[in-house]
């Protein structure tokens, strides 16, 4: 890696099959954003359906064509929309788009490495991700419709084409796409772990790493441990679907026919799925929390409070996240004793989470807060992380889960705690590192408009949603008009949808700002935020190998902000300790 000679690059090696981590990170970001537009767009369509379930709507016909003839949505397509919305947002936007973008950009730059350990694997990882996106998008155009069994694709619904139209070719493509996605994610994660362990610059001990890197590092480890299990779950499902095995299926009678499957159990699939599925929540969330740690400290001009406690809680959350998957399965027919065990482990996660939240708040205390858009989104993240995390105390408690399981209460909970929070992390990261990625600044005013509308609208969407969940309305219902009992929820659904459209529109402001700033934003100086971390010691113009000449060596932690005895309110990591100066 160490070589720094500038070999000639063609358009293709520079912009397409690039092995440079900075370019790959931009590729991840832009692909992730494109998938995000599709994922959020789908939610707009099903919010139309949920708010005005009986009225024909021209937008539905416009976007869904034959699946919404005369503007009335087909119930199968409603299920397909929620399925693909979930899949795209969880995997393609918040896993690849968030973690892929910032792990790639920041790991080499913040630890002081010239590139990832293997640029080639990194390139393959991105292109596998791209391929899986393409396959997922192709599945939207299958005659019978895309996969529609929910993003958790529980068999037998997902295994039997007789059970619903989406479980035919659409489901096959979904599985293929996810298998490729997992391969991509594993290659990426291996690369991150190896890079962090081996390529840190001189002086960069593990206890001097910025918290972003800690978060990416631990995230990569849980990814490596849990994604293969989802791959095996998917492979077994493919076998059940195509080769007549009975891993997940038994005693089935459908469409007037007894099927031959004997002895399998859908509960097995649920175990395998959630063995990834729950860590996945933290694969999505930890990078966002890492980004927040960095941004809150930098823009508060104050060291992060409890650096070691933050590392410990990242590790604790990661460890616990692998032994709590059963809380998705309290009422699946699993042995109730297991329910007790998983209640115990699940509620334990609240402890490191609470520590993190308190530490963020204390970091703000007596700071000199620079309320830039990146900072606003980080504070917003702490707010939604608390609001969404607290309802986890209800859902994680097996006894209470009985009546709210799979209702809108769950939808509200996880959208706040992992959806909105992780999206805020993504936005905060983009606003903060945009100068590093594109050499220009984004527009501040538009950033503020984007944040405030999004912040108000997202609470407007998800806070009322708790109420319809507590009232007993199940999720994934095409309409609630089949039950007169739910008639009084119609108003709330309209309100939620209106907020959803506002939130959706606010993202257009971001998109405009993003695209416009890439070309016309104000040129940035090298260290616009007066930040301590190493990426800002690299030149604005991207060069292969990141630094001209020597890689800077590290003498202090990343959080010497407003340290007494220094003229400036920041001391970059490559500044040697003064004589007699104590390490933080």
């Amino acid at each position, binding site marked *: 890696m160490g070589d720094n000679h500038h070999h000639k690059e063609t358009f293709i090696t520079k912009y397409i099959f690039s092995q440079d981590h900075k370019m790959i990170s931009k590729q991840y970001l832009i692909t992730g954003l494109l998938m995000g537009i599709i994922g959020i767009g789908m939610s707009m369509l099903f919010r139309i359906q949920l708010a005005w379930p009986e009225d024909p709507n021209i937008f539905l016909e*416009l976007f869904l064509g034959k699946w919404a003839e005369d503007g009335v949505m087909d*119930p*199968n397509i409603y*299920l397909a929309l929620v399925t693909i919305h979930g899949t795209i947002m969880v995997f393609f936007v918040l896993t690849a788009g968030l973690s892929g973008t910032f792990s790639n950009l920041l790991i080499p730059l913040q630890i002081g490495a010239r590139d990832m350990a293997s640029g080639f694997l990194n390139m393959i990882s991105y292109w596998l991700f791209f391929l899986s996106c393409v396959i997922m998008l192709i599945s939207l155009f299958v005659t019978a419709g895309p996969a529609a069994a929910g993003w958790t694709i*529980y068999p*037998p*619904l997902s295994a*039997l084409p007789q*059970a619903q139209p989406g479980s035919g070719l659409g489901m096959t493509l979904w599985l293929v796409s996810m298998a490729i996605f997992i391969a991509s994610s594993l290659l990426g994660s291996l690369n991150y772990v190896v890079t962090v362990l081996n390529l840190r610059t001189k002086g960069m001990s593990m206890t001097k790493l910025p918290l972003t890197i800690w978060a990416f590092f631990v995230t990569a480890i849980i990814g490596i441990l849990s994604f293969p299990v989802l791959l095996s779950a998917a492979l077994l499902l493919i076998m059940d679907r195509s080769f007549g095995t009975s891993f997940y*299926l038994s*005693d089935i009678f*459908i469409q007037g026919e007894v099927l031959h499957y004997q002895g399998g159990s*859908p509960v097995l699939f649920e175990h395998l799925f959630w063995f990834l599925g729950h860590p996945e929540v933290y694969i999505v969330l930890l990078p966002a929390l890492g980004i927040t740690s960095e941004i809150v400290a930098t823009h*508060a*001009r*104050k060291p*992060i409070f409890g*650096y070691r406690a933050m590392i410990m809680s990242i590790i604790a959350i990661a460890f616990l996240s692998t032994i709590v998957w059963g809380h998705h399965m309290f*009422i*699946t*027919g699993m042995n109730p004793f297991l329910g007790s065990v998983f209640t115990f482990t699940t509620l*334990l996660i*609240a402890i490191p989470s609470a*520590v993190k939240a308190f530490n963020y*708040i*204390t970091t703000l*205390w007596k700071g*000199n*807060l620079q*309320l*830039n*858009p990146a*900072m*606003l989104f980080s*504070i917003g993240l702490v*707010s939604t992380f*608390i609001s969404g995390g607290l309802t986890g*105390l209800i859902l994680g*408690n097996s006894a209470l889960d009985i*009546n709210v*399981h*799979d209702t809108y209460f769950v939808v509200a909970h996880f959208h706040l705690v992992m959806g909105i929070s992780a999206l805020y992390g993504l936005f905060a990261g983009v606003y903060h590192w945009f100068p590093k990625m594109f050499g220009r*600044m984004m*527009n*501040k*005013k538009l950033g503020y408009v984007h944040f*405030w509308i999004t912040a108000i609208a997202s*609470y407007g969407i998800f*806070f*009322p949603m708790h109420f319809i969940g507590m*009232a007993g309305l*199940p999720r*994934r219902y*095409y309409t609630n008009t089949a*039950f007169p*009992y739910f008639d*009084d929820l119609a108003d709330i659904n309209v309100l939620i949808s209106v907020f959803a459209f506002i939130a959706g529109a606010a993202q257009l402001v971001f998109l*405009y700002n993003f695209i416009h700033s890439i070309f016309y934003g104000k040129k940035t100086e090298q260290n616009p935020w007066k930040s301590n971390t190493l990426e800002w010691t690299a030149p604005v113009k991207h060069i292969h190998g990141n630094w001209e000449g020597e890689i800077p060596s590290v003498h202090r932690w990343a959080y010497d902000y407003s340290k007494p005895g220094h003229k400036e*309110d920041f001391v970059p990591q490559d500044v040697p300790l003064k004589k007699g100066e104590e390490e*933080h």
Partner: protein
Amino acid sequence: MNILLIFIIVIIIGIALWQLKKIFEIAQVSMDNSQIASDKDNRLNGKLMFAFLGFLYILMLFSFWKWGDLLLPKAASAHGKEYDFLMNISFILIFFVQFVTQAVLHYFAYKYRGKKEGKAFFYHENHKLELIWTVIPIIALAVLITYGLRTWSKIMYPKENEKALVLGLYAQQFNWKARYAGVDNVLGEAHVRYLQEFDGKNIVGIDPDDPYGKDDVVVTQEIHLPVGREVILKMRSQDVIHSAYIPHFRVQMNCVPGMITQFAFTPTITTAQMRKNEDIVKKVNKINAIRTENNKELIAKGEETLEPYEFDYILLCNKICGASHYNMQMKIIVESEEEFQKWLAEQKTFAEVIQ
């Protein structure tokens, strides 16, 4: 037609963006928009942060005032009381923490908004403080976990009860069926391979050779339950996973093909009593007001009007199961033991059906 519409929308969006761009260019002339907050920005956004706290509080209070009656429908089962108590404790705890932490977070964001000449306080460790806020959640969680596990065990491991009514629930796309165990109170063996026997009259696949199955009673329209007697639900599904969800009884359990799942509960309020309950009356009136309003529209359009709503316990499907998942329901009627026995005697047993 569609293509034309898309075309027009694209053009309109294009024009809008172009106009937006112009506005911003004009606005940018006089100010630095390079994303680094000035003191003015810090002041404004600091105040907005504080205002946002107000918004959050108002949203929470307004929601409870306006929709508080939706929270947890009235419990009508023996374990419902305990469930509700645990839920209320959790809610109080959650709201306390939510109110305090959000207040502190947003207040700090306002109070410590940056100034050009300002300097932050170099402060990054306090083991005592960290210990305190690790220990307090541990204590709160210990209470929640202990109490939660106790409730869970009580619900999941009911005491042996010979008088309990054994009721089979049978799920398929997209309806429910129920099977009473008959005089012997034992459900006959069943399997999907028996479904096609007797010209499809064996609708839940009871083994015709099992003597326990002969007196079983299968119903498809509504479930009747005697009040005050424990019911043991034994659930099966013939095709995909479904979930039997009865919100008023605080009951939910998945129905999984290939296995039998179980949930026991005791209904404590009859349908007739429930209909007279104050909360329910209020809710029913509210719903009927909405339905009358909707009927006006329907009449104007010349469509069929909605029936007035009357309260009934409902069994819903709460696990995605296909196109009509949203309409997979069954009515449940809770009545006195005598009424129940009378109703049950009118139903045909399995032996009678297959004759």
